[in-house]
């Protein structure tokens, strides 16, 4: 049976699409799933560094599409989980190097080899977005609880509905419990109410995410981090498990004094 194709998208840049893709890819691999993460951000690849696999790349997705290598050669095996692969973007090309039908073909071929194919969509709603969402069975919309990113998320959801693309689920990223409590940040319920799609996860702001990405060891691998726990839960929900939403936690006084754990 072919694996499920899931595209991570947002409209707005910088909300955490690539971080989410890396963490969900690893999170699913940790649960024993076979996963292929495709970096669809041609020209601005970053999923490789998030996953800590940048030194292992020989071929990329454009090399494969243009017939310069085999599919397996364009798949970089993860050093932690042998069933996790990255298909890197080409760094010296642009979005026009891939057509909608190219990506459809690659995604479906990858789905024959894996339980989950995660496609990290580029920001925007142009060509790169279109070829990323077309093959998807499910689109995960990543948003931050602030006006601009929720607005862009709504645009993407509207496009998905108008074009009859895959259903969308929401991940609210970078929520700050302190600010929500003080009434200075949109809470998850308001964002959900406005966007009117189903919620897959809430990930709170956590300095461990930056520390983890500096090292190429995504936060999902960190048993003690709050965001890591949230990503592990999202991965389980993706597999259909019924995992309750974790309550928002403020950092403890010690964590505040010493910074990140």
């Amino acid at each position, binding site marked *: 049976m072919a694996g499920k194709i899931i595209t991570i998208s947002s409209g707005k840049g910088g909300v955490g699409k690539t971080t989410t893709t890396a963490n969900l890819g690893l999170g699913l691999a940790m649960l024993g799933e076979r996963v292929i993460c495709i970096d669809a951000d041609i020209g601005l690849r970053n999923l490789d560094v998030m996953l800590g696999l940048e030194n292992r790349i020989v071929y990329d997705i454009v090399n494969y599409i243009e017939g310069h290598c085999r599919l397996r050669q364009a798949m970089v095996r993860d050093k932690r989980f042998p069933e996790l692969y990255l298909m890197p973007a080409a760094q010296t090309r642009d979005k026009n190097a891939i057509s909608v039908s190219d990506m459809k073909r690659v995604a479906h071929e990858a789905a024959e080899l894996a339980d989950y194919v995660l496609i990290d969509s580029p920001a925007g709603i142009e060509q790169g977005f279109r070829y990323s969402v077309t093959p998807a069975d499910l689109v995960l919309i990543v948003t931050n609880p*602030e006006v601009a990113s929720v607005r862009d998320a*709504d645009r993407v959801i*509207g496009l998905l509905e108008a074009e009859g693309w895959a259903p969308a689920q929401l991940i609210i990223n970078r929520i700050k419990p302190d600010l929500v409590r003080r*009434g*200075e940040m*949109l*809470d998850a319920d308001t964002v959900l109410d406005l966007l009117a799609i189903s919620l897959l996860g809430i990930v709170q702001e956590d300095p461990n995410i930056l520390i983890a990405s500096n090292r190429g060891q995504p936060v999902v691998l960190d048993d003690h981090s709050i965001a890591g726990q949230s990503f592990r839960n999202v991965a389980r929900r993706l597999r259909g498990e019924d995992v309750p939403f974790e309550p928002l936690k403020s950092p403890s006084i010690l964590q505040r004094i010493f910074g990140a754990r």
Partner: protein
Amino acid sequence: MNLLNRLLRRRDPSGQDIAAQRLRLVLTHDRANISPGILALLKDELIAVISRHLEIDAEKVQVNFTEDQRETRLVADIPLMQARHRRSSD
């Protein structure tokens, strides 16, 4: 000072409320693909058309969008002058 600021600020709508309000408006216009300017124009034209047939209280006309989940409707609230007239002519 800080405490005083906080106490004073409590009377204003919170950042959360302002963000939610602004988002609600901007999403409504985005979804309907109609700018606030066009909506004002539409309102004026509605008033003009309806005034040809009915006497309405143009000042109190309200034309707005309402949202129910992802469904948007245009709702026009147009009070008629009729009732008041009848009373005054009695």
